[in-house]
């Protein structure tokens, strides 16, 4: 059968691309190892009976997503730190890597879970996502996501309500422009709520502290960022899932 053959020789492009990233972020990879095993096992259980090839595929996708998550977390963290940046970048880097080293891996894990969950949910709901399925669109989505972060970090809003509203509108616009699926919206919303809840719990328990004295400020943009982040990562995950199957056609 034609499909069989193509199945066998699919999915090489994105992973090859990411291989270099992985090597560069080797320190992350060491941390990622045990997390990934958990993630893959969970995802494997969730998706039921999976083929061996599909499992390998899943692990690969998960790794890619994890890397993206870590990278985005680092960059966006840097954006937020810039708000009260001092002149000496060494210090910034030091705080970035020392104070909360576990944040990027956490974000990476979350990205992997969400990015794998999206296509899984799609297939379970039986409505495959067909809207703008191409890498260019995904890149656009990531750029808009970074832009939203940029806006939340750099712009001076009059008050927190305005900030919240603006960010919410932007996030919704992101979802509508790049996703437009019910499952995407639902999952994004769930992600946002859960992540906010977890963050709040962490903060209340004193595990993590906001550097910004303005507590409300942080709370006002957090859900929106999480929502748009969820949608973005979901977009990537879907593209990865589809890219594995349909890559040869595009070329």
């Amino acid at each position, binding site marked *: 059968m034609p499909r069989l053959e193509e199945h066998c*020789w699919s999915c090489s492009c994105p992973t090859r691309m990411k291989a270099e990233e992985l090597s560069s972020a080797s320190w992350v990879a060491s941390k990622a190892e045990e997390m990934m095993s958990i993630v893959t096992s969970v995802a494997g259980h969730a998706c039921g009976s999976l083929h061996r090839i599909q499992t390998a595929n899943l692990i690969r996708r998960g790794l890619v997503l994890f890397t993206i998550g870590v990278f985005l977390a680092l960059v966006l963290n840097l954006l937020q730190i*810039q708000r009260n940046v*001092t002149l000496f970048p060494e210090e910034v880097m030091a705080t970035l890597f020392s104070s909360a080293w576990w944040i990027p891996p956490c974000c990476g894990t979350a990205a992997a879970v969400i990015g794998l969950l999206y296509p899984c949910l799609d297939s379970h709901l039986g409505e495959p996502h067909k809207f703008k399925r*191409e*890498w260019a669109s995904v*890149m656009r989505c990531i750029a808009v996501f970074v832009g939203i972060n940029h806006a939340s970090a750099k*712009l*001076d809003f009059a008050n927190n309500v305005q900030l919240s509203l603006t960010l919410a509108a932007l996030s919704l616009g992101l979802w509508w422009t790049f996703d437009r699926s019910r499952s995407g919206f639902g999952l994004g919303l769930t992600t946002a709520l859960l992540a906010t809840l977890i963050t709040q719990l962490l903060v209340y328990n004193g595990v993590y502290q906001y550097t910004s004295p303005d507590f409300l400020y942080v709370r006002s943009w957090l859900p929106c960022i999480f929502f748009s982040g969820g949608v973005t990562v979901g977009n990537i995950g879907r593209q990865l899932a589809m890219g594995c199957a349909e890559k040869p056609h595009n070329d």
Partner: protein
Amino acid sequence: MTVRERLRQNISAAFYRHGLLCASYPVPIVLFTSASILTCCYPLLKLPLPGTGPVVFTTGVRDYTIPYHEPQGEIGERPEWYRGPPVAYIQQVLVKAAVSPWDNTLVPVDVFRSPIGRVFSLLEEIRNHVYTDSSGVRSLESLCLQVTDLLPGLRRMQTILPEHGCLLVSPGNYWQNQRDLFDLDSDLLKTIHQHEPKGFHISTSLRDLLFGVMKEHTGVSLYSKKRVVTYTITIALSSYDPRFLGSLRARLKQLHPSLNCTLRDDHMVHVHFKEEIGIAELIPLVTTYIILFAYIYFSTRKIDMVKSKWGLALAAVVTVLSSLLMSVGLCTLFGLTPTLNGGEIFPYLVVVIGLENVLVLTKSVVSTPVDLEVKLRIAQGLSNESWSIMKNVATELGIILIGYFTLVPAIQEFCLFAVVGLVSDFFLQMFFFTTVLSIDIRRMELADLNRRLPAEAGMPQPKPGPLRPRETPPPPRQSPHTITLQAPAFRNLRLPKRLRVVYFLARTRLAQRIIMVGTVIWIGILVYTDPAGLRTYLAAQVSEQSPLGESGLPPHLGVAPVFPGGDPTSTLSVLPAPEPTIIPENHSNGHDSLGHITPVSPQISWGPEDEDGWKHLYLRQWPSLFSYYNITLAKRYISILPVIPVTLHLSPQEAIETRHPQDTRHQPPPIPRTPDQQNDLTLYKVAALGLAAGVLLVLLLFCLYRVLCPRNYGQNGVPHGRRRRGDLPCDEYGYSPPVSEISPLLLRGHSMDIECLASDGMLLASCCLAGQIRVWDAQTGDCLTIIPNNGLRRSSSSGGWEHRDGWDPMTMPEPDTLSGADTGACLEGAECDGYPLRRRLTPSRPALFVDQPDLTPLIDTNFSELPPSQKPPKNGFDFGELVDRAYQEHEPSPSLAFTPSPTAPQPRRPSVGDQPVMSPDPCSPGPTDWDSSVWAMELRGNLIAAGRSSGKLELWDAVEGSLRCCNEDGVSGITALAFHNNRIVAARLNGSLDFFTVETNKPLGLLQYRGAPGRGSMPPSPCYRSEDVINCQLTRSVQCAHQKPITVLRAAAGRVVTGSQDHTVRVYRLEDSCCLFTLQGHSGGITSIYIDQTMVLASGGQDGAICLWDVLTGSRVSHVYGHRGDVTSLVCTTSCVISSGLDDLICIWDRSTGIKLYSIQQEVGCGASLGVISESLLVTGGQGCVSFWDLNFGDLLQTVYLGQNSEGQGVRQLLVLENAAIVCDFGSELSLVYVPSVLEKLD
């Protein structure tokens, strides 16, 4: 019809007309668009260039008040940053000191030791200065900027820079402001130098900070010519108290008057520092840009099927970028000044505007039928996508409009830019990009036309309707294969990566260009950032142009000092009046010069360059000074107060007094060490370094060359000498592989054109139109056997020819013409009576076998005239019956169980041995047609199977040339034969398929009487030994295998595949001749089939389609349209399928995906034959030549001409032998081409 529908139609029609317009007048439209882009970008010229340089604003000192935080009514006069108090007020005391008059007894250290030593007294003076008035007592302590700790990273500077106190820096800081330490210091220069950063350092050094003037102007050097020491005492004040400062100024002036000082003290300068870009900011910025480039890459990658992919991608990017520029320009024109950081929002703007429309447009235009005119194609493509484009634009505008109502100023501004950018982008898409696309499509069509004019001549041009915007008639099969010209990048998909990179570098001359661009940029940066260069000039220009700069300051202050001040050397010459005060008055010390006036006596002059001393410094001086105390100046400003000039004249006595004992001792003689000499030394050093670097570079390049280039690259000349008239470019990089002479070995002997060709690796059998079969040694090219035809006059049972009318006239042209000729020759018709007479039972003996019994009288050499041989058919039959009886009596078992006789019988005349087998054949007594032509031939293991047009199957011994067996079961002509193991499959003209089994029976002792013993020493042939009795039996005959004549027959891997005129392909199992599958999928007769041991089945038909089948399941794997006519030949390798068609095109397809990798346009009338030598080497037959192609690159490697008169004779058949030799027919000759090892080694 709803409004929506109407709108849609209107839009579509409008786009259609617009497309027509664009495609009709491309050049004027492009010119117009460029003009409008330039016009819209014109306002951008007024904007200052982006940069992080500080901005200067000058106000008068007299009525200075601290600016308010809130902007006042007079906006427009003051820059926006000029609000609130500055970070600090900088008060500098500029000290110029000289030992005067200069004495020859003085040593060079004296130039600066005592002048610097005076800094301590000055510091004392400043620190202790108190101003008392009615409001109280003010001292420096109360006014100055109090600083705390240094940053943790600066511990080594702790002893030098002040901590926990006033920020007051001077050269005295080197010695902790203590005179004692200074006096004890034996080597001042060393102390100063030890804090200098090592190596090349662009930012401010400590020395610049402490001295306050640039290094060159301090004069603290052993080789100073002017012998004037300049330094500043810098005081940072936190609050501005004019009275205190005034009194300080007056006090210092009184103490150390500078008579000829022309410095103005009536204006202060505010310097605003832009935000600094650190790593923390750079990383997100770089990330966004990376994402942007990925986006552009992924978008433009989708541009396909156009003439120049790169060109269109460039046009797309240009469209977006210039629309952005236009939007900024338009916004500026209407009074909106951009406040956002351009570099930061730029990627987001690009992403918002997007490249989608451009791509959609390209795709739509490309997918229109190519037969249309370019104009119509553009118009149709545009109108097809008009609705979606409009919808898209409207949606984006809507989203941005929503963003506008967030009421955040920055977002509003962004949205405004985005809206204008979107609109201008739409405009550019419609005018600029569409036109570029039309030009591109036209170019492609031209190129296409040139290439395929002959093939296209027969194609009717469908005339499109005048206005059919939405109904693009789907062409039946033109579109998939009309665009065969792939972009070069696509064609070279299969290049090794290393080569691809190197080729790319070589093709684009990337290295040179990068170096050039890099040099230009570097020079530009140098010029721009040079403290005395362009930037200050620009800053001056900006401050001059903008109305802000001139507010509240007299015109001569604004500009004049700035630019000339930037260039110290020029100012020296421009200097208005150096005031020749040859005898300075030393009011301060009372030391008078003793009239010892030497021409070298230092002169202290004050010029305008001193006034702007802060400009001579590196731009980071103040930020870095403040940053040591963790005070950032980013987005803030400092105010620089007018300089207090101090002139010090010291007497030689004082200089001598302050000397350190070691100063004189260790001083080198000043005369030999002139600056010139030092300069020379530096020059030598630089020259040596440059030379070494050059040598290293040359060596490196040489190594690179050796690594990258083959050893004998370019040594074997005549790269294009044997190319085919130079019109087939061998390589688009201009690389031509070394040519080694390949001389084909011509096998001559046939009198007429060769029709059939068969080989089993060792032997080579060919059959010409005359019916003569020759057997050749495939290694040496010797002719081993000749099997002549029995008669020239052949009767053709041409009953089946009507069925072949639809056949490809190219592959099988001969039978047609022959049959006509034959019918003319044989007037009696097919069943003419002469057949028994001319029947010759003994085949010819080759001259090689001289040890055989002389049978030459039996050989019919004169085919037409000779009387019949002495064995009439009846005899044969009788004899055969006899033998048969005896055979059956003596045969122990019908199987092969009998022991092989040790003494092989003398090779009998085939008719004798074979007749018994054939005798039971009921229909054989009928007219056996010896005169029929050979239509198909196969060679396996010494046996030649020849299928004749009469339907007879003959088995000949290849070595001895004897007829071993004959089967006349069928009457319909055998069109194709397959010989596999011991089975022969014959396809007949009437569509039936016969399966024969070749059985080897060892001859019985009974038969031995007929021949002489011996010949047991004959080497055993792979399959059939000549002494074996060969029995060819019809095992099964599938009567109606196909409805129409079978055209192709292939056997491999235990399967027999037949292709027929009836559009179907059938797969049979070889063992039991059971039909496994009937494969339907072609819409024309099957013309070629390929099957190999790996069960790959490919079929090509007259419809130009190629199907790949799965032999195991019978399902179709892929189905592609590749040719504009019959597929003439098909070959598969492990990775790709190669097909050639009547359109003289060779297409290479990816086997697993069915995607066309590339195609090779051949010359007219060649390319019917194909062969694959290795995985990457393809050989095709042409007009009198064979060409070797590299499959990975699609490049012509070599063309081998078969004969002198190469024109006119095409190579129709081509066989690849196991030893990588190629056999092809060349008229009446065979050509054996040994592929040189050079080609084999190609990876």
